[in-house]
């Protein structure tokens, strides 16, 4: 194969890694374990097994305490976690919170890291007092803030971007959950003084954009995994379920739901994978791909849950059947790290900027 014969993007992921993650998640994320996690807000024992294998730090540099590997590997692990509805803060530790700490040269803790995603209602402010950073205000929808070892906060101070590694014990956490029952509490910060060893500036001026894109990519990958698992679950269920003497998958009305659900999953999965490959090269340079992937994925998350539930009938509405572990997460995730309208707008503005003659090249980029 000559150089001109090699596709320009690298989509490869570590097959051994994927195999072992799949096995581990299949073993640990059983129906009962995922269901039980709704009480506690997460599954510390699943975290434990995943952490023992080093998976939550994939894509973070070894020298910073990470497990090494590529961003593609990390995204693939998140996709698998989405497919298994893994009730642990993987994306936060790998892609956003943990990444933010390593970017600032701060220590990675042994346990999960979360991040302040930054919503329009947030009011966090920081000021320097000597060498310390004093933070004040509220942060909303901070994933698993009560379960994480550290909350990574990106905060502008006198024109610089500072990262603070906040201890959950330093703040007041007001519980709140998304529609999947995953903790998304409000974090109240009342003049909390962060000492110098847990604060550092980041040089890159667009670190906030990177964080936003990484957050979006993480949810996109998780949704893609959940959509694929949901499509498989629905195909299996409708093959086994009989009505009027034959499998319901034989009815055209059900076939339509199966096909549309499979298409939705395929779109999301492809979008997440391609976006990850571009992000591997340069997260900021992958702004279009990540925004487009996210926009497509949140749209199909909405439609695919509709088809899957319709194909399942009453069974899908019960706690005892696994569909809701996926569908409720999809209903939640599509609104996290910015809402559907915002990502669609972002893509729209890029298309507008590309102009008529640049539009197709953008689509084919």
């Amino acid at each position: 194969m000559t150089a001109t014969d090699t596709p320009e993007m690298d989509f490869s992921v570590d097959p051994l890694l994927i195999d072992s993650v799949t096995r581990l998640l299949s073993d640990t994320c059983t129906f009962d374990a995922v269901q039980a996690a709704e009480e506690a807000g997460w599954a510390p024992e699943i975290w434990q097994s995943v952490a023992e294998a080093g998976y939550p730090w994939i894509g973070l540099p070894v020298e910073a305490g990470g497990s090494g590997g590529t961003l593609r590997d990390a995204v693939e692990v998140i996709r698998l976690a989405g497919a298994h509805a893994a009730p642990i803060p993987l994306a936060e530790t790998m892609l956003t919170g943990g990444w933010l700490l390593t970017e600032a040269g701060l220590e990675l803790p042994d346990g999960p890291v979360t991040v302040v995603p930054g919503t329009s209602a947030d009011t966090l402010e920081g000021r320097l007092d000597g060498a310390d950073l004093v933070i004040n205000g509220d942060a909303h929808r901070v994933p698993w803030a009560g379960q994480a070892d550290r909350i990574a906060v990106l905060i502008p101070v006198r024109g610089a971007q500072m990262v603070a590694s906040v201890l959950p014990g330093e703040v007041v956490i007001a519980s709140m959950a998304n529609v999947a029952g995953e903790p998304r509490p409000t974090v109240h910060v009342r003049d909390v003084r962060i000492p110098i060893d847990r604060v550092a500036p980041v040089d890159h001026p667009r670190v906030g954009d990177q964080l936003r894109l990484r957050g979006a990519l993480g949810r996109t990958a998780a949704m893609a995994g959940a959509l694929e698992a949901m499509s498989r679950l629905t195909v299996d269920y409708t093959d086994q379920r009989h009505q009027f003497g034959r499998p319901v998958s034989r009815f055209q009305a059900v076939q339509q739901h199966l096909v549309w659900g499979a298409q939705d999953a395929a779109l999301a999965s492809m979008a997440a994978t391609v976006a990850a490959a571009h992000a591997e090269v340069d997260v900021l340079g992958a702004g279009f791909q990540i925004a487009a992937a996210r926009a497509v994925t949140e749209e199909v998350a909405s439609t695919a849950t509709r088809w899957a539930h319709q194909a399942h009938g009453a069974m899908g509405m019960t706690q005892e059947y696994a569909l809701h572990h996926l569908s409720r997460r999809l209903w939640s995730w599509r609104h996290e790290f910015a809402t559907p309208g915002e990502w669609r707008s972002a893509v729209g503005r890029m298309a507008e900027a590309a102009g008529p003659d640049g539009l197709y090249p953008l689509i084919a980029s």
Partner: protein
Amino acid sequence: MRFAPTSLTAAERELQREVRTFLAEELPPGSYERALGMGAGNNPEFSKRLAARGWVGMALPTAYGGHDRTAVDRFIVVEELLSHGAPIGYHWVADRQTGSIINRFGTDAQRERFLPPICRGELGFSIGMSEPDSGSDLASVSTRGTRTDGGWLLNGTKVWTSGAHENDWFVVLCRTTPIEDGNKHQGLSQFLVDLASPGLEINGIPFLDGSPGFNEVVMTDVFVPDELVLGELGMGWAQNTSELAYERGGPDRWLSTYGVVEEFLRLHDGSRLGTRAVQLLGWATARWWALRNLSLSVARMIDDGQAPAVESALVKEMGTRFEQDVLQAVLDLVDLEPSPDSASLFERLVSAAVLTGPSFTIRGGTIEILRSVASKGLRQ
């Protein structure tokens, strides 16, 4: 297929005003946890107060404590209750479904026993039709009723029985004669069963978010005396077919997500809405208005002695899809992460709608079944 246009009479407008006044006093905005249409919670006290106004058992005969009102009068009361998100859960099924079935098919003794408390809003009923292996295909039920001294012994399991944990009685569809010549529709009967009967076990089937909702009702040699066979033995299929028809085409099939839009509007009251919000509001309002006119037409046709089976199936099929479309449109418009714990009523409503939305097009006959019913009727 024909929908005759109609409108309210002066008397009906007066009823509408009365109901609105009642609700404005009973449930001023902000004073209650607004519900999403017929998926409302139980509030026996509210049901009794409503009954005291004569708005429960409206379709039932005065002789049994009912009010002999028209389908349109019921429509008016129901649309106001549902659009207010009132807590109608306790009396809903008995009022709307079981009462009518007992009145239509039951014995005199059954009418005398059950209808008066239903009309007082004091008796909650559940429906025992579905089984683990019989959903839309009702005739395939495997719960059996076998003859015994002075009555029947019921054995089998019913699922998706809403409210069985809170209600008093339920109506059970059973097979009382084995299938012989392949005619699955014969040999089915319905029984009125006390949910406190010995041998009857109620196991909650939590809703997908863990909230109570469905139940599994397991019956092991549950004795039901002869006098509680609903009407005539062996007529279960015919009774149930008409029972399904009762469920169709009313305001409960297109108002489930109305509250989401009203609360969205309340949230932004006073500020001028943006183009996208105005377009959404215009789209939804126009369609509600048109759907309501079709649905009202069905009620009037019933009062005129017609049998608008196709028409009501058409309304239900499109109404329940529209309920979901409205929610999707709102979710796409607003900047919000849905949470059942939100301090905002609007956000809680949205969350509840997200979680229950899929059931709109499933409950009481899936839209696929409705399409099959309706499309056959279009040929006439």
